[in-house]
């Protein structure tokens, strides 16, 4: 797993961004960028080259699902790894995310091992 890549972490809760950053740093990732909603995330994606997107679903302004659809519709990021990390775990949510092209899905609460396993799968 290439840990030199640039990762965008999107969540409206600073707590979750902090936990994910801690886990990613433990895994060796150093190049981490944050956004607190989908709109801000899209601004980051337009101005910086991001290699991996880790996003929450339920956020104000632009949800994680809307961000995913926007990402998949763009020429630059249509194949970029996109990990959804969310408390939205109902069957319909998972189906919608898969249909929108999510690379993988982690349900909150999660362990560091769960994040590591999913990242290894989508970054291999």
């Amino acid at each position, binding site marked *: 797993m290439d840990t030199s890549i640039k990762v965008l972490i999107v969540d409206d*809760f600073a707590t979750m961004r902090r936990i994910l950053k801690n886990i990613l740093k433990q895994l060796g990732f150093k190049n981490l960028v944050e956004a607190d909603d989908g709109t801000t995330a899209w601004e980051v994606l337009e101005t910086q080259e991001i290699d991996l997107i880790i996003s929450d679903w339920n956020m104000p302004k632009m949800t994680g699902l809307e961000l995913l659809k926007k990402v998949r519709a763009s020429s630059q990021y249509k194949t970029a790894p996109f990990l959804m990390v969310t408390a*939205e*775990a109902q069957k319909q949510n998972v189906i919608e995310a898969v249909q929108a092209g999510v690379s993988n899905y982690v349900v*909150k609460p*999660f362990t560091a091992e769960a994040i590591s396993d999913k990242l290894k799968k989508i970054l291999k």
Partner: protein
Amino acid sequence: MDVKLINPFINATINVLETMAFVTVTAGKPYVKQDSKAIGDVTGVLGLTGVANGTISVTFEENCILTVVSNMFGEEMNTLNEDIADAVGELTNMISGQARRELDEAGKVFKAAIPSVITGKDHAIRHYTDGPKIAIPFKTDGGEFTIEVCFDRQKRG
């Protein structure tokens, strides 16, 4: 109130706290709470709509939430501040999500709002519906917390 609506919140609370904060959580006996005074210092409140409408709240005593968030961040937290309030919001969000997943599997579909957080001694918790407030106390190594679940009397799934 239908007990089938309560148990998923108890299961979710234990799962979320044990997974994210590495604390052992023991649930006490549920009871009907008569007043709106919070049993603790910081509360997350979240509205739910679906087969019933209601709210859930999660109220932590100061020592308990400081221990929980210290474990979540891997660094010691000493005061109730914005970081703690944010963490309580996210914990409430995760408990709601886990509980809704279990309810969804039983055919009861709910949608959740974004949680709000109230901090301070002797604060009040306002549930948005007129149903009975079921309180469930929990113990952890670091202190105690209470969840309250309140659904309206009108709709039943």
